[in-house]
């Protein structure tokens, strides 16, 4: 009976992990240009970082504002190790360099985690912020180790090729990152299924009761912190290999904030949420920043929208559809979704137009003429303001109605599903 009952779940799990591995394998052959490859590589490293962050935030209820400390210090240790290896002092093959980062992260996790995890909630968040600022200040104060403003650069091509790989070409680096990413994903998922992983959830949900079933919540938080720091360090080691430079930016509050944003956007209640979040985040940071200087504003607005309307992140939006699709009622939502999508696009177009014009006007020495889809216009004239203003206003009004329609349909479907279940 049991095997019959559980086999589909296991099969699903195999398909899921197999599919993930396949995506890692074929992605660079679908997105073949070098820019896309750079992005994929960064996504891989960031996925590890965000998943490790979610070991704290999503799984243990610890809001950290200083997670970059562990990835950044891991990256610093890795860059020094790599430079030593290049001199022939340290016999370490490049593919294992992320382990140096990982163990460095782990050691700093033990040291700083001992302080931060003594408290939970707001106090934990404050201490993590303080430690983040402290480490960042140190990075600028001790140029001997941290390389000052310029950081420490390196060259990843060292010694003899490892199994015929030099790791000079970007594609080889991508596959190195992909392999580590897959390994770390599997390891972090496995951790959620252990006694510690489950008790971390218990500490998150009800720390008081956890103490009364024999667990020291402080110790649970500490261990989660140390393990998360290890994976953050691995991610730092990979970014050291990828960029061949490590600077104070790696331990900065900006990076700590970035991982919080990415993780939240993806969805902290779900293991795979941060994976989606990382992909979206890197698209914003790497791709969008090439198009517009206002990318950070867009990212901020997107984050705000998620916090307000979808606190479960993109993952929750996706998972919500599954029961509807299973009941074969997704068709009823298709039209409302399409309408809402169009309205949102309209409002977005208006918003982007206005934001870009503002940027052009506020910046000195930049042409105020913009060209969109063959339409050239001057930000100093009234017409484009009227057009984009109408788009934004009309889009928002349309979005309100479309959202109401979605809500109504959603309500009837949910009522139907519940009626069937009862």
């Amino acid at each position, binding site marked *: 009976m049991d095997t019959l009952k559980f086999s589909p779940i296991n099969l699903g799990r195999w398909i899921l992990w197999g599919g993930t591995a396949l995506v890692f394998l074929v992605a660079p052959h679908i997105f073949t240009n070098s820019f896309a490859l750079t992005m994929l590589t960064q996504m891989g490293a960031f996925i590890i970082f965000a998943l490790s962050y979610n070991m704290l935030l999503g799984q243990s209820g610890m809001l950290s504002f200083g997670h970059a400390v562990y990835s950044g210090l891991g990256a610093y240790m890795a860059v020094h190790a790599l430079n030593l290896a290049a001199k022939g002092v340290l016999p370490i093959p490049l593919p294992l360099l992320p382990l140096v980062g990982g163990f460095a992260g782990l050691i700093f996790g033990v040291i700083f985690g001992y302080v931060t995890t003594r408290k939970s909630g707001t106090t934990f968040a404050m201490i993590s912020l303080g430690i983040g600022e402290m480490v960042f200040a140190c990075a600028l104060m001790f140029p001997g180790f941290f390389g000052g403003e310029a950081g420490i650069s390196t060259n990843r091509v060292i010694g003899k090729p490892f199994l015929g790989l030099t790791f000079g070409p970007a594609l080889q680096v991508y596959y190195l990152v992909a392999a580590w990413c897959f390994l770390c994903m599997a390891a972090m998922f496995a951790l959620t299924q252990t*006694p510690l*992983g489950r008790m971390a959830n*218990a500490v998150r949900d009800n720390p008081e009761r956890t*103490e*009364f*079933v024999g667990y020291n919540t402080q*110790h649970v938080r500490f261990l989660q912190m140390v393990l998360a720091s290890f994976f953050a360090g691995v991610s730092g080691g990979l970014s050291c290999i990828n960029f061949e430079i490590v600077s104070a930016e790696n331990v900065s509050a900006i990076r700590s904030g970035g991982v919080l944003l990415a993780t939240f956007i993806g969805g902290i209640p779900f293991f795979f949420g941060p994976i989606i979040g990382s992909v979206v985040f890197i698209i914003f940071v790497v791709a969008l920043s090439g198009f517009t200087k206002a990318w950070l504003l867009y990212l901020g607005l997107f984050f705000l929208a998620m916090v307000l309307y979808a606190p479960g992140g993109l993952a929750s939006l996706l998972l919500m559809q599954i029961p509807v699709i299973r009941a074969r009622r997704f068709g009823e939502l298709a039209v409302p979704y399409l309408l809402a999508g169009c309205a949102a696009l309209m409002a977005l177009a208006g918003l982007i137009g206005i934001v870009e014009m503002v940027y052009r006007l506020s910046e000195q020495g930049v042409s105020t003429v913009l060209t969109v889809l063959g339409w050239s216009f001057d930000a100093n004239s009234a017409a484009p303001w009227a057009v984009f203003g109408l788009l934004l206003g009309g889009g928002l009004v349309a979005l309100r109605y479309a959202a109401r329609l979605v809500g109504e349909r959603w309500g009837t479907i949910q009522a139907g599903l519940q009626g069937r279940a009862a």
Partner: protein
Amino acid sequence: MTAPAIELRDVHKSFGSTLIIQGVSLSVAQGERHAIIGPNGAGKSTLYNLISGRFPVSAGSIWLNGEDITGLKPYEINRKGLSRSFQVTNIFHNMTVYENIRCGVLWSLGYRYSFWHRMNGLAEVRRRAEEVMEKIGLEKRRGMLAGVLTYAEQRALEIGVTIAGGAGAILLDEPTAGMSRSETARAVELVRSITEGRTLIMVEHDMGVVFDLADRISVLVYGEIIATGKPEEIRANPSVQEAYLGGLHKKDGHA
């Protein structure tokens, strides 16, 4: 002679200048079912919080099986074999019934903070959790989230989490609070069966339950125990009647 299961020696507790518990001494023998009764605000819940380590005592000492547990942390006291439930249901609402029980089982089976065991592979944990679920009558609810259970089911789960670790001494804080008559009857049977061979201290407002279950009763009034004895002794005690029982019985009679 074996040491008492739970012993309080001249325990005091004050919050600021307010004395809540003023010199409580109490000895509960191994395997005894002991009830603490008293009017609202008498300090019953505070006494529980002192025994289970939730609050530190201001003075006095608390002993578990002849061992001084004064000043230990709740998790240390739990590991020594004393487990408690809460008056306001205090379970893991976002976890299933099965997972709730499992949380209670884990430490006692020695898995502690392990991050190298796969939870679903732990046959012993599974077996113990199944046993507890059957005992509290929630085996059919195993996959449901604790937060969506009925009130009576949540109270049963509260007891389940409390006993899951196999503690020898159990503190139950109003296990039948807010239940209907039929639910109360079931809860009494549950408490009776799970405390078989264990020491129980319980706080309870329902006098029917108290006189039905308890081997001995202590009456707590304004932070002091004014009487301890067998149910019939307590019923016959004039000062208890005056302080507490009389008024309550009259109310019951009208209901």
